[in-house]
Each structure stands twice: as structure tokens, then as C-alpha cells.
């Protein structure tokens, strides 16, 4: 059982605060037209899931991400300046401005890609895990996906394959209760998605995704199991998306009463309270982290702003590995 050392708690806090700070900035940019595109999906409110899961991973482990991928990548260790540059479509961005928010990917931190196709990652992650095993490493692949994605055929196909071949995968369902405008009860007959694990004889666990420590403990167990040859786990974290499905969504399918409950789920405030109550950290220390993060985000924005636009001439060379065909 991993210890909640001061160092770990600070790391979890910093990760969550960075995701929040980064995304609140992106939200502001989206409103003022300072980032291109209308499909910017934020994970504000859901920070504890990527933070807790990625803290259980090694640097060389893989994550397969979704359309809502900023948090996953930050938690895996990506640089916010190159991320912000990508969101602005700049050459210094991780994908050289070709991907943008929905496809933001940093392979150097083990990110295998954010995806615009809901459910696609559920079959890609088992492949990365298979590759790790064939190459003789003990890397683990984590697959993030939503409650909506859990209905795609790829969910069942991916879980079946991973279970049959005992692949080192952890399937992490970020259950925020909605697939776009569709509430979970309207898109599936079950409440707990983790129950589906039973069909593949793999462990299925549901945790409170507002509680980063709970997420971290469950993820650590699942990652360890995967790494040691025990096979895949389906880990469901219940969470809450504060913003609309994407930034242009007026979110009229959720009532004002429902939205009023969001702050009660705040994973950052929850960890803050626990830190103080359990003496894991001091108010002053948390304050210091917050200002460090704020400075980092400001630097990231400046970097992105000053970066060069990409050149269309370079596009052709990116289509195939050998350059221009």
C-alpha cells in the first residue's frame, strides 16, 4: 500500500491545480477567440482522475487519451507551454499545430494520442500493452474513456482482447454522468459501468473520482497487477464535468439545480481540506504551489503567443514517414 507522503500529496495537488489553471485559461481564450476551433473539451471538475491515475504510473508507461485530454497529458508530465502552443495552432506545439486540442499528443511523456473518435482508444491501448509485452518491457498502458464511450463496440472488443490475452492494461472510465447531452441513464441500462468487467472476468472497481487519494490507491493496485502479469482491470471513477461538453455548448440539458451541486464535488478543495485536517501540508505550502502554478501558466501563455505559425509547405512531409511521396 503506497504511503501518502507529503511529497506525493503535494504532487497530486500541484497536478490538479495545473490542470485547473491551464483549462480555465483555455476557457477564457476560447471565449475571446484567442484559440482557434470550437471543439475544445475541458475537464474542469474532473482533475482528480488523471492526477490520481497518472501518479500511479511510471514515466515510460503509456496513456491513451480522449477528446477531453488536456488533463491526462498534464498529469503524465507534459509541458504546459508546448500544450498551449498546440492549442493556438503554433509550430512549437506538441503536434506542430496540426492536431490542436482534440488530438494533443506528447509521445515523450508516454502519451499515445488524444482521439476525436469516441471509443477508438479502447482498442489501441490493448495494442500498446501487447507491444510492451512483445518487446519484453514491463510497461503498462492506461486507457481513459468516458461513460458514453463505454457503449461502443470497441469497449467490449478491447476488454475482451485484453482479458483473453491478460494484457497489461488499465481501463479507466471517467464517468461524468454524461455523453455530450445524454445522461447516463438514457444511454445505458446499468449504473455502475465497472459491473461489465464481470463479463470478461477481470476486476471491476468503482471509486469516488472526486477523491484523488482514492483514485490513486485503486489505480496503484490495478497498475501493479497489470505490471506483474495479472492482466487488465476496469476502473471506474465517478466524476463531474463543470463546463459544457465543449466550450461552445450552452449546456441547457443540465438544470441549474444540478449545476449548483458541482462545487460540492471540487476535488481540489477536497484535497486541500484533507491536507489541512490531517496535517499532510500547510496552508502556506499550498498557497506557494498555487502561485508557482500560476506563474507557470502565465509563462506558457506568453510562450504560445510568441511562437511562430506553422508553414503549409511542411504539411506534405508529414503525411508519410518517408516525407513527400
Amino acid at each position, binding site marked *: 500500500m503506497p504511503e501518502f507522503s507529503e511529497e506525493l500529496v503535494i504532487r497530486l495537488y500541484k497536478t490538479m491545480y495545473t490542470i485547473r489553471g491551464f483549462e480555465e485559461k483555455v476557457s477564457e481564450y476560447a471565449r475571446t477567440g484567442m484559440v*482557434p*476551433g*470550437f*471543439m475544445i473539451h475541458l475537464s474542469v471538475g474532473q482533475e482528480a482522475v488523471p492526477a490520481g491515475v497518472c501518479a500511479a504510473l511510471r514515466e515510460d508507461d503509456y496513456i491513451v487519451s480522449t477528446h477531453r485530454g488536456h488533463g491526462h497529458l498534464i498529469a503524465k508530465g507534459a509541458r504546459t507551454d508546448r500544450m498551449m502552443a498546440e492549442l493556438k*495552432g*503554433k509550430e512549437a506545439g506538441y*503536434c506542430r*499545430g*496540426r*492536431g*490542436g486540442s*482534440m*488530438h494533443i499528443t506528447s509521445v515523450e511523456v508516454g502519451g499515445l494520442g488524444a*482521439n*476525436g*473518435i*469516441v*471509443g477508438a482508444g479502447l482498442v489501441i491501448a490493448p495494442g500498446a500493452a501487447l507491444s510492451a509485452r512483445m518487446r519484453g518491457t514491463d510497461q503498462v498502458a492506461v486507457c481513459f474513456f468516458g461513460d*458514453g*464511450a463505454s*457503449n*461502443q*463496440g470497441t469497449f467490449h472488443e478491447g476488454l475482451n482482447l485484453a482479458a483473453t490475452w491478460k494484457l497489461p492494461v488499465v481501463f479507466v472510465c471517467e464517468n461524468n454522468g454524461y*455523453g*455530450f*447531452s*445524454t445522461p447516463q441513464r*438514457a*444511454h*445505458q441500462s446499468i449504473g455502475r459501468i465497472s459491473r461489465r468487467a464481470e463479463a470478461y472476468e477481470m476486476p471491476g472497481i468503482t471509486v469516488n473520482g472526486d477523491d484523488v487519494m482514492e483514485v490513486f490507491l485503486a489505480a496503484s493496485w490495478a497498475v501493479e497487477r497489470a505490471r506483474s502479469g495479472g492482466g487488465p482491470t476496469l476502473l471506474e471513477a465517478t466524476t463531474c464535468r463543470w463546463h459544457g461538453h465543449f466550450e461552445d455548448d450552452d449546456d441547457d*440539458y443540465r438544470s441549474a439545480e444540478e449545476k449548483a451541486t458541482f462545487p460540492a464535488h471540487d476535488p481540489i478543495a477536497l484535497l486541500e481540506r484533507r491536507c489541512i485536517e490531517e496535517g499532510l501540508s500547510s496552508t502556506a505550502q499550498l498557497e506557494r504551489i498555487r502561485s508557482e502554478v500560476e506563474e507557470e501558466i502565465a509563462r506558457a501563455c506568453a510562450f504560445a503567443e510568441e511562437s511562430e*505559425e*506553422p508553414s*503549409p509547405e511542411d*504539411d*506534405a512531409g*508529414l*503525411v508519410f514517414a518517408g516525407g513527400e511521396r
Partner: protein
Amino acid sequence: MAETMAAETEFLTYFQAVRLALKEEMELDPSVFLMGEDIRFSIFGPTKDLHLEVGESRVLDTPITESAFVGAAVGAAITGMRPVVEIMFADFMTVCMDQIINQAAKIRFMTGGQVKVPLVIRAPGGMLTSSAAQHSQCLEALFMHIPGLKICVPSGPVDAKGLLKSAIRDDDPVLFFEHKALYFASEEVPTDPQFTVPMGQAAVLREGEDVTVFAVSGMVSSAVSAANSLARDGISAEVIDPRTLVPLDKQALLASVRKTGRLVTVEEGCLTGGVGAEISALVTAEAWSDLKGPVVRVAAKDQPVPFSPVLEAACAPTAQTIAAAVRECVEKNR
């Protein structure tokens, strides 16, 4: 048959025209119903709150399972219903290719005509402000390769309404490609519920003598503005909008090329294996002696659509690049 002339019109956007067609057809025919992800919410508007007007059971929000609901639509279609399904972005049609290509397109033929598949798949395609590689594609040409699928590419509200009504009444599977960038284009649209635009009939949007410009979907208005600007320089371009790619109005196309002797095709999909490739081969085979020079194809670059606005703008044809290509076609082949 010419399109029905209608006295009454209403100023509608493209998405409102689609909505009106859906509503009218559901009112006329109880076997018509809609399915798709978040269609009651409706990201681009055509089906927003339509269930409140036509009844809960006629507008079904589905789980995110393209294979399942397109397959279910095939099942419903072969048993007496007329489903209209929406794929939220045309790109996601790749998720249910088996249902479209091996099932819907093949069933009538394979069963020796025992069953028909009156299914419509509405799918918005095309580029719209940095939607990037998985939300921007024009896949029309891909499906033109598959016998058994009809393909509509309405370029404006009137065609959107009239063609969708024809598609719903048609007994074959129809892929109905809406263009995201056109959703807010508007014009006067006939309000007569019997108004339709027949499939297989092109529209000549502008008459001309020197060159035929065959433009598809989102490229039609750019082609028209290119033609207008060329007219000021004494180049007379005839602009043809096929409106449906399958069936294709060969007569209108060939008649125009026989008159002008030159052809430029314009599409937003990729160049290689594109719509223009097929049209070019067809015209070359059937009107070779009338052509004064090679057919020119204007299309998007053979690459995924980039996110960056600068790159995206350089990827697809514009009125300027179309005009330049048309001018070159005319000047090179005097």
C-alpha cells in the same frame, strides 16, 4: 420532371430547411423516424427539440454506438420503416462502415430484390474553423465507389429541403451529406410539403460559354464567386451543381462540356481518387472530341486536414484558387 414550382416561400437557413423537410416527411408518413447521438440537443440545429413537435417516439437519442444504430436502421428499413439516421460528423461513418457498405448497399441486390432498404444517413462533412483531421472530411468520393448507395450533396437551403424529402421517399439507402459551413446560409425556401428536388438532376447556376465548372457542396458558392470575378475579365464560366453524385446527371454535364469545350471540377475532398477523378474520366470517355484541353481538377491537398487556421486555409480550394485554375484552363487551351 422539373422540380415542383411552389408559390409560398419562407426565408430559411440550411439547417432550418433540413429541419422542415424532416418535420414535413414525418407528418406525411408515420413510418419515418429519426435516430442519432444527441439529436434532440442537435449540435448544428436541424433536429433541435424536434421530438417536442413530432412526438418522443419519432426522434430517438441513441447511445454512442454508430454500428448499432445504423445497423438497427438497416433492420428497421428492411421491415417497413423509413429511418433517417444522423452521424454527428461524416467522419464517424468510418465507425459503421460494415453497416453502410456491406449491409445497406448490398442487401437489395444480394436478395434478388426481395427487400428494399429505404434508409437515409444524414452526415455533416467539410471543414469548419479548425475542426482538424477527424472532424473535417468530405468522404463523398469514398462512397461513390460503392454501388447501391445514392449520394446527395445539397449546396443550399432549397436543395437541402427538396433533396432530403426525395431521399426520405426513396426506396434505396441514401447518404445525405450536409456541409457544416453551410448550415447558416439562407435563402427563400418553398413551404409546400409536396415540394421536392428530384435526385439525378443537376442545376446550372450560371450559364457560360468558355468553360464548365462542376462544383460540389461547400465549393459551389466559391465556384460561383470565382465565375463572377472571371466574368469581369471576359471569361464566361458555366457553373454546374450536380446536387446528387449518385445518380449523376450525365446529360447536363455532357451538354455543358459540349458547349464550352472545357471542364474544371471543384471539390473539398482530397484530389486523388476524388469526385473530380470520376467526372474527368467520364467526360474524357464520352465527350473527348468536344474537349479543347485536359480536364482540370481543383480539390483539397492529399493530406489530413490540419488544425491550425493558417494550414487549414491552405489546404482546401478557395474562390481565388478556383478562379486561377479556371483561368489557366481557358488560357492554355484557346
